[in-house]
Every structure is written in structure tokens, then in C-alpha cells.
């Protein structure tokens, strides 16, 4: 039987899963992601976690419990940065430690440090690979395959979303961390709901990396959180191209509380339709639906007036 490695379906899972999956599978490991977030997982998470962190971070506890008895290894990387000169939110830095100290009887946790400021991704993944095989060529190939597949995956996601869109109708950009946008449970199935309202959705995944990482003005130059800068830049990229922007942030998210405030103030300045959707573990679907419908109605009315 193959060794099983579990990956909790939280946080950076939504960005790097295809990469990790192929990498581990090439090393002859069986990859087991945790179940999609459900009520039980959320309940477990809230019970264990510190009460003040944001929901996505809380969820790691529930997903870890979900995997605990199924796997031999748990992959919870310490992702310090995924871009040079940038860092991630401190909670991602302390993630493996927090899990280790809060849950008993865990399988071995693999807490590879990924820090582009110190060493390249290749080097960190190579070190990780050495834990499972002694053959350097195998690791090398796994890395190449993983890289290719993650690029393919990105392209597929993009076309999938674009195929959903019709030519006409309102276009709304949904901005925020991938784990807030794609976790259907905690955001009340936001993307599907928008689709049902006949709205074309665009997300940050459709913006090229070059645009996401440039420094467009004096402020974006100083944003040192990788993903916040992407959100900030894509806001400015979308502002001329879409009819409205929905910014999904989780309550008590540190970086978003500041960058979100800047976006809010900018949207007000340009009189641009902007909805800031704050989610936490108590958010009800009805609340989200009401706000979405009101927002869409407002944009539609604006359209009519223009005609």
C-alpha cells in the first residue's frame, strides 16, 4: 500500500493544490485532500481554535481532524513568501506550529519552509522530496511535472470560468483571497449565486502575473503582503473593464483590514460600485444573498439610467 499524505483543504490549497498533488504523486505517494468544508468541520474548528483569528485559519483545525486518522503524513507547509521581497500574513508563518500545539495524536507533520527570499522553490521542494526518495532525478522530474500541471490547471480554470460567461450582461469582478472565493461553504456559494443571477464573473485568476505584480502607484509599491498586492493591483486593472467589484474579506483578517480600507476609499472617490463582503463563521447565506441582490439591482438601475 502506498504511503498516504494528507493535504488540508484550506488557505493555500486553493492556489497550489495541483502543484503539490502532482509532485507527491510522482514520488509514489497517495495524496488525500480533506473533505470540502462542511458544518462538522466548521464546528470542530471553532471549538479548538483561538477565537480571534480569521475563519480560513480557523478551518485548518477542522480539516486536520478530518484527515488525522486517514493518513500517514500531513502536509502543512510554512509558506513565508511566494514572491521575492514579499511576505505572507504572519498567521501562515505560524500555521504548522499552531496546529502541532493544539491537536494531539497527529500523524507526522511535514512543515517545509517555502521562502523565496531565502531559497528558490526548487530547492525547498528538493529537500522535501529527499524525505521520500533518494533518487534526485525522480525529484527533479516530479518538480518539472508539477510545474507544468499547475500551469495547465490555471489555464483550465480560466477557460471554465470564461465559458460560463455570456457576451452580454453585467460583468462583476470578485476579488479576494482564493480561499475566500473558492470555499463554497464559508462564502455561501458566492460564485454560483452570481451565475444564477445571470452575471458574468471575473476573478483575479484571469489577470496575468505581470499585471498582478507590478507596482502601479506609490501605494502599491509599499504593500509587502503578496496576495494583498495582487488584490490591490487587480482592482485597478478591473476598474475600467467591469461594472462592479465585490471584495470578499474574512473578519479580523489583518492585511485586508488595511488594504480593503484603501480600496473602499478609492471606490468612493471614483464613484465605482463596490461591495465589501465580510465573512466569518456566523455569516448566514440569507444575509449574503440579500446584499448581493441589492448590489446587482443597483448596478442594473445604473445601467438603465445611462441608456
Amino acid at each position, binding site marked *: 500500500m502506498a504511503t498516504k499524505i494528507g493535504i488540508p483543504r484550506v488557505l493555500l490549497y486553493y492556489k497550489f493544490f495541483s502543484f503539490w498533488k502532482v509532485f507527491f504523486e510522482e514520488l509514489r505517494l497517495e495524496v488525500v485532500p480533506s473533505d470540502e468544508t462542511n458544518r462538522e468541520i466548521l464546528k470542530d474548528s471553532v471549538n479548538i481554535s483561538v477565537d480571534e483569528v480569521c475563519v480560513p485559519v480557523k478551518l485548518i483545525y477542522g480539516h486536520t481532524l478530518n484527515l488525522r486518522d486517514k493518513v500517514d503524513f500531513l502536509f502543512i507547509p510554512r509558506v513565508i513568501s511566494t514572491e521575492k521581497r514579499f511576505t505572507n500574513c504572519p498567521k501562515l508563518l505560524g500555521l504548522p506550529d499552531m496546529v502541532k500545539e493544539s491537536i494531539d495524536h497527529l500523524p507526522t507533520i511535514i512543515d517545509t519552509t517555502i521562502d523565496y527570499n531565502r531559497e528558490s522553490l526548487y530547492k525547498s521542494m528538493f529537500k522535501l522530496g529527499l524525505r521520500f526518495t533518494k533518487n534526485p532525478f525522480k525529484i527533479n522530474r516530479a518538480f518539472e511535472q508539477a510545474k507544468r500541471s499547475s500551469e495547465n490547471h490555471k489555464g483550465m480554470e480560466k477557460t471554465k470560468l470564461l465559458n460560463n460567461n455570456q457576451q452580454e450582461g453585467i460583468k462583476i469582478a470578485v476579488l479576494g483571497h482564493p480561499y475566500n472565493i473558492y470555499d463554497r461553504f464559508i462564502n455561501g456559494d458566492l460564485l454560483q449565486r452570481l451565475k444564477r443571477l445571470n452575471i458574468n464573473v471575473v476573478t483575479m485568476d484571469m489577470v496575468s502575473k505581470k499585471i498582478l505584480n507590478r507596482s502601479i502607484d506609490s501605494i502599491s509599491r509599499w504593500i509587502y503582503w503578496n496576495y494583498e498586492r495582487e488584490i490591490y493591483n487587480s482592482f485597478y486593472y478591473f476598474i475600467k473593464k467591469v461594472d462592479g467589484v465585490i471584495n470578499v474579506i474574512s473578519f479580523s483578517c489583518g492585511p485586508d483590514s488595511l*488594504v480593503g480600507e484603501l480600496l473602499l476609499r478609492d471606490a468612493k472617490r471614483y464613484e465605482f460600485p463596490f461591495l465589501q463582503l465580510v465573512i466569518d463563521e456566523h455569516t448566514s447565506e440569507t444575509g449574503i444573498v440579500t446584499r448581493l441582490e441589492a448590489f446587482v439591482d443597483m448596478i442594473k438601475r445604473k445601467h438603465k439610467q445611462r441608456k
Partner: protein
Amino acid sequence: MGNNWVAFKGLLETLGAQVIVPPRITKRTIDLGVKYSPEFVCFPFKVNIGNFIEALEAGADTLVMVGGTGGTCRFGFYNIVQKRILDDLGYKFDMIVFRDDNFWEILFKKFRKIGEDSSISKIIKAFRVLWWKAKVISEIEDLVRFNRAYEKRIGEADRVLEKALMMLDEQKKVKEIKEVRSEIKNLFKHIPKDLKKKPLRIGIIGEVYVRSEPYVNLDIEKELGKMGVLVDQKMSVYKWLKVILRIDLERAWTARRARPYLKVNAGAEDQQSIGHTIKYAKAGTDGVIMLYPFSCMPENIARGILPNVSRRYKIPILTFSLDEQTGKTGMITRLEAFVDLLNRKRRR
């Protein structure tokens, strides 16, 4: 930052600026800050905004913000959002931001312009005054903590504290500061004390700002002193100056101690909090109180790890998450319960 206005006033006066000591933080400061700040930003940001607005109302034209870009915590990004908020409110001002890379530039270019004399020796002199005043203040604070626990009449130590700060504030030269320092020590010596007492010892850990600003932490040290507790606190502006100049070796040791629990320093004081807890436990301190602003990212990591440390080293920990909604009565109730618990634990 608490009593340390004396030190910074010393610095700026020696530089030749006219200093208006801002009124201590009041309810109005916090109301203003809360009104104009983002909803769930951490508490120091809100207090900061309130401070800045009150300073601008009083006629200040330059705001100094220490700390910009660097680390992972929100603090480094404060200045940009604060500037935006104050700009939107229509204030005209100049903001000096200390960044990692422009420290010396600001020191020698901007600070030299203050006042008439613009020699480098003036700057050195000013910083010597800051250094010494900060040092004396940290000594005074330690003395106050000690005296609060042992004094016969409650409140005596705080009266001497006020007097000592006034005395220190009047001094302009390093030599005079040194003289006043021994005078102050004498003052504290003459407070009638009951040295047979064996007070509880409690260490305070957590985020730096809320630890050193009495209005924000609801004067927790004084309240504990009233209950006859000997408080220990490892942070002061003097210590912090040492950290900036990278000559604080103790900090590295504390971080080392925390490493088995938290591998990297995720910003602010998280490793320090864990390390100090272990240190206190080994030194036989009765309990630890942790203070941090609501939703502070690094301290929440530490908080997630501390229960385990507490179990392993058998040291009780009480945490306070502070923001504009924290009530004093609630805090005192919790403190009394905690002190009772520690007393019972000791008797056993």
C-alpha cells in the same frame, strides 16, 4: 507611550523644537480614532489616528511615524493608510516615516533642520539625553512596581512616581540626569515598606504598545499593585532602543527558548511572549498575564501555542484582548479571580 513622553520631550527639546506635550489619551481620543479607522484594524491603529487628529487640531504640522514597511505585521503598513485617512479628512501636514532604509537620512537631514543650531554634535547630544532619560524611566518604573507590592500605605508609590517624573523632566543635561537619578532612588527608599510580606509575582507579556500605555491597558499594573502583587515586565522604551540598535542580547536568548514551540518569528513579540513565559515558569513566578490588541496577528499565534506551554511548565496564564470595548470592571473581576487562584495554588 505611558511615562516615556519625558524622554522624547527631552530629545526634541535638545534638538531645538518647541514641544507641545499632547494631553494624555482620553475617551475623546479613542472615539475619534474609532470613528475614522477601518472596522477591524488592531487597536493601536485607532488610538494612533485619535492622537494624530488631536495633535493636528492643536496645530502640529509634522507627524512622526516610527516604523514603516518591514516585517509581516500590520504595523509597517500603518503609515500609508493613516496618511490617506487624514488626507481625506482635509488636514494639511507633513509625515516623517522612519523606514528601515532611511533611518540615518532622516536623522541627519530632517532633524538637523529643527531649531537654529544644526551641528551633528547637537544630534548626538539629543540622543544621549533620550537614552539616559529612557534608562532612568525604566528604572523608576521597576521601582514603582516593587514599591506598590510592599508599601504600607497604598498609593504612596504612585505619588512618588509623579514627583520623580517632574524632577526628571526639568533636567536638560546628561550630567544633571545622572544626579537626579540617585535623588529619585532615595525618594523611593524612604517609602515605608513591609518587607516581611511575600507578595505574588506576576509577569506581564504580550504586545509592546498595549503593555506600555496605561490608558489602553486600563492601568492593569496599578490595579495589580493595589492587590499587593509584584508585577514584572520586561519591556520599556529603554529596552526598545536597545532592540533597535541591535545590542539587546537577551532578546535573542528568549527567542531561542521559544523555538521548539514556534520555529520562526512571525512578527511583533510572538516568540518573545512564549520565551518569557518559559523563563518566568523556570524562575518560579506565580502567573503570567498576556495583553494584546484585539485581532493582533502575531500575538494570536502565540496565544494558540501558549496553552500547551502553560500545561507543560505548570504556569497559569490569563489573557486580555484589548480594544475600545474592554471595560474596567470586567477586567478587575477577572484579575481578582486570577489572584485568588494563584493564592490558593501557593498555599497548597
